[in-house]
């Protein structure tokens, strides 16, 4: 009891300190700036939902910002409407056509007796003069942003035929002074929080296919070690800590296997292991560098970086083992391969006259396209719908994230004040 009495105040103090830590603006706000847009953007009218003033944030503004950020849509200005239309109003299509809207969203928010809210909305095709569907959601005050992102996903999918990524998350590393934070935020940069804070570098975060875990490399033991961190209960465990360096984790599509680069047998070679660190087996046997593995979406192949041909290039080999084929040929430095979700394109970093630029290779036509005009691109990461690629770059001496559409037209920049952002990883669709 003496012992317990002595230690309890210390514990409470520790708790108070931890609470203070998280209550503070723990994660710096990512701000997003749109620096390029698609050529033809579909004009949409997102009318403020009737009664949305009762919510802590404007759902219609968030939906509009989401849709505009995609580069596919342009929100049109909404005049003061009397009476204010809702999802049940009779739509005056001629009037919306005159405002040059191709699509229209109307809706309403109602407070419920239990303190929650009900949001209803309906999407209309103004050109075809037809309702395209609608949904009702029940939400708490804390779920306003999440609900708005779901509405934006609904609108995006109805109008483009592709799934939206507004409800997904991104992970990235922020370096501020000598402090490294692995952070997670919504795809629009909001709701950021840190998962891990360290005095030593953190790099290469990758999401498990179900979005419940992150694998990453941490230098907290003065050398690279691969960890797997559960986002459900915050438990982290070592996946690979062998003699030498342990790095470059990648998840198999079924989530049952990690590919990593280990130097435990000399050199940097590819190994497969279970996410709990068991069942380690060597995959490549070269005297070259083999690193940065990524599984193809069907789980059959590994794409990776190797200098076995004299310069670092992207290769591909069967996960079951066997010979590797070279994939990139243009230039003397092509690294960090990432497959598109449909497996048909490869994003990577290409050195072009001393500039490191994100490039995209169509694996069928072999056409290569450089996506940016920057000089220090790193770590490309596809959005789960394959539309955008998030990458790290350096602007004005500071690390920022940049998102670029697969056609190179739509561009956004994500930055934090007084810090470097790097090592982005776009999370999967959450069911």
């Amino acid at each position, binding site marked *: 009891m003496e012992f317990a009495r002595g230690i309890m105040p210390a514990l409470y103090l520790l708790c108070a300190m931890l609470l203070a830590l998280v209550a503070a603006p723990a994660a710096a706000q990512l701000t997003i700036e749109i620096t390029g847009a698609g050529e033809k953007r579909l004009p949409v009218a997102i009318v403020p939902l009737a009664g949305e003033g009762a919510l802590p944030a404007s759902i219609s503004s968030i939906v509009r910002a989401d849709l505009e950020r995609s580069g596919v849509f342009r929100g049109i200005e909404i005049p003061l409407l009397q009476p204010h239309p809702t999802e049940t109003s009779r739509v005056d299509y001629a009037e919306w056509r005159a405002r040059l809207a191709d699509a229209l969203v109307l809706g309403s928010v109602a407070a419920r007796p239990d303190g929650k809210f009900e949001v209803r909305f309906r999407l209309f095709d103004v050109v075809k003069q037809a309702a395209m569907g609608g949904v009702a959601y029940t939400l708490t005050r804390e779920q306003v942003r999440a609900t708005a992102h779901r509405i934006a996903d609904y609108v995006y999918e109805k109008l483009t035929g592709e799934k939206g990524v507004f409800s997904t998350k991104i992970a990235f590393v922020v370096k501020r002074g000598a402090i490294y934070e692995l952070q997670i935020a919504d795809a629009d940069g909001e709701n950021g929080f840190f998962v891990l804070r*360290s005095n030593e570098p953190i790099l290469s975060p990758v999401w498990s296919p179900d979005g419940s875990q992150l694998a990453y490399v941490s230098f907290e033991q003065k050398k690279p070690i691969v960890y797997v961190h559960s986002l459900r209960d915050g438990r982290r465990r070592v996946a690979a800590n062998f003699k030498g360096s342990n790095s470059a984790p990648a998840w198999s599509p079924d989530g049952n296997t990690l590919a990593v680069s280990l130097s435990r047998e000399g050199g940097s070679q590819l190994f497969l292991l279970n996410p709990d660190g068991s069942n380690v087996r060597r995959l490549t046997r070269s005297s070259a560098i083999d690193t940065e593995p990524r599984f193809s979406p069907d789980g059959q192949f590994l794409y990776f970086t190797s200098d076995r041909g004299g310069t670092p290039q992207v290769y591909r080999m069967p996960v079951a083992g066997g010979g590797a084929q070279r994939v990139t040929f243009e230039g003397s430095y092509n690294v960090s391969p990432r497959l598109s979700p449909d497996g048909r394109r490869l994003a990577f970093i290409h050195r072009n006259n001393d500039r490191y630029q994100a490039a995209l290779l169509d694996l069928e036509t072999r056409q290569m396209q450089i996506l940016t005009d920057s000089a220090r691109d790193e770590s490309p990461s596809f959005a789960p719908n394959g539309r955008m690629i998030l990458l790290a770059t350096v602007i004005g001496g500071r690390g920022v994230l940049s998102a670029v559409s697969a056609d190179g037209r739509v561009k956004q920049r994500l930055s934090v004040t007084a810090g470097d952002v790097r090592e982005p990883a776009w999370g999967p669709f959450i069911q």
Partner: protein
Amino acid sequence: MRVFWIAVLCALLAACAGTPTEQSPAGVEDRKPGAEARGVEAGGPSGAELTAAQRAALTDPASPLSKRSIFYDFDKYDVKPEYRPLVEAHAKFLRENAGMKMLIQGNTDDRGSREYNIALGQRRSDGVKRMLLLLGAREDQVESVSLGEEKPRAPGSTEEAWAQNRRSDMLYQGEY
């Protein structure tokens, strides 16, 4: 959500009040309790602490042993002839101090992929290790790892900074 996990943590800490709690690695904070490592072989050499005499031998500026860094040309990982006496001196020290362990950290400049640079730094530290073993150090005395471009000695993106950062450092236990 965040507050919820802290509450869970506090509850767990309180529940453990009668038993010593495990320490996290220094300087690392994760959001919850229960960080654990299992099912892996221990990494990193660990040996006896340095004696005062050994420490003196390793830090005397007049001794070649006080020099720990080997620098490289761009995209190169061979130990240049000018560093051979330095590596020989450390190999001799390891031979004569069988309990002594060394960690070699390979480093690169900040151009290109972070992960590829880990592999390049590894190639540099592996080269130093190979040379030490050829000169009589034992395999279990030496671990070669890479810090890639993550721990630059010189900040900035200039030729001078890059030259400082293309480097292997030989560190003895207690020095890293």
